């Protein structure tokens, strides 16, 4: 029997409305997680450059643990493991957001650390010698400059985290990949559907790239 594969355009197009239902979940998990992750990143990133060893080590521990273990294991642990500990189930959506937050937070901590440390010491000295407090010097002089340098790696992390949400199909969040799997189970059009899923991810990440490039150019223009 001769095997001939034909890309079924109609099947691909038909799948789009169902697949698109997953996009809000993908976006909610990734951006919800990233916003919290950014907060964690600022907190632990700044802790990690503290002179005081006692304050520094929790940051180091957090960063190493969440960078050093797979995000899939992290989300499985949160979704299946943690309920045993707290004695209550955790919503898949919550588990997903928590996993992205904790995981991206660890990477963003390093981005924050690198960004802050890249600012010349002379900037801090100039601020202090003008009579500004350490806090004022940091937040009005060092941080705005560091943040500008952090935009490219933060954008990079956002794209990585968006793609990471695809792993959360395993805990049953109705995000893009999960929607695809459900659809394929009924239609057996795996090639077409995963192709569309990939394109939809690309639409999200490319849009983000374009926005970031714009933001970056505006940020750099004023320096």
């Amino acid at each position, binding site marked *: 029997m001769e095997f001939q594969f034909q890309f079924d355009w109609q099947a691909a197009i038909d799948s789009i409305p169902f697949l698109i239902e997953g996009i809000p979940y993908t976006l909610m998990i990734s951006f919800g997680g990233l916003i919290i992750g950014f907060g964690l990143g600022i907190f632990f990133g700044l802790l990690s450059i503290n002179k005081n060893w006692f304050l520094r080590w929790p940051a180091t521990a957090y960063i190493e643990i969440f960078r050093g273990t797979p995000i899939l294991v992290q989300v499985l642990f949160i979704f299946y493991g943690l309920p045993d500990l707290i004695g209550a189930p955790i919503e898949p959506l919550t588990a997903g957001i928590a996993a992205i937050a904790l995981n991206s937070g660890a990477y963003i901590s390093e981005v924050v650390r690198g960004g802050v440390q890249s600012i010349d010491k002379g900037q801090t000295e100039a601020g202090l*010698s*003008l009579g500004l407090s350490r806090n004022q010097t940091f937040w009005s002089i060092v941080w705005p400059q560091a943040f500008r340098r952090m935009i490219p790696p933060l954008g990079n992390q956002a794209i990585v985290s968006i793609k990471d949400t695809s792993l959360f199909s395993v805990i049953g969040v109705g995000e893009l990949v999960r929607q695809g799997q459900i659809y394929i189970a009924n239609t057996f059009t795996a090639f077409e559907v995963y192709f569309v899923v990939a394109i939809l991810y690309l639409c999200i990440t490319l849009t983000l790239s374009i926005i970031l490039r714009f933001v970056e150019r505006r940020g750099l223009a004023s320096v």
Partner: protein
Amino acid sequence: MTDIVNMKGMNKYFGPLHVLKEIDLTVAKGEVVVVIGASGSGKSTLIRCVNGLEEFESGELTVDGHPLAPRSGNPQSLAEIRKEVGMVFQQFNLFPHLTVKQNIMLAPKKVKDASQSEASEIAERLLNRVGIGNQADKYPTHLSGGQQQRVAIARALAMDPRLMLFDEPTSALDPEMIGEVLDVMRELAKEGMTMMVVTHEMGFAREVADRVIYIHEGRIVEEGKPADVFDNPQNERTQAFLSRVLAH
């Protein structure tokens, strides 16, 4: 008490390195003191101790009546001192994310709670004074080195300092821009500003300084009126240093 700066038996170490040795130095109100010496002699470290950018390990330091304890042991004094002492750096250290005018307005607003219009007024007045009133809305990187350093001076002056520290203010400048910065400093001195200046500009030191201090390996080895130090140095190390720097 008319001494703005008073150092007694001050010692400073960088790890095992003894960079300032038993420094005794006073700077009177209105006095211009120029500190000279080879690189690595400790002259920059000396003036950086005055506003606490460097800690010292032992001895006494009082700035405008505020005593500083060794190892930054007196944070309240330090905060007061920094409000009253302006500093100009070799690398300008302007804030690149702020315009020239915003650079100058920042400290009056944050430290002295000046209103936007008060701070703006201060900035305009000082920019005119240093001769770059027309560059207010540019970002520092769009200015020449000489202009940037003049902005840095204006920024320090915005806090109405009782003492100005200059840490090699012309060493990072192209030769043709040194004059414009020295002119501003000369004006300041004429108006009675108390100044401590670390510089290699011997002509400026001779002309503007009330007193010249020569530092060698962390120790003050010669101190006196510029004419005496330059024309009739007593210490052989000063003689050797001056013959090297004045030869060209």
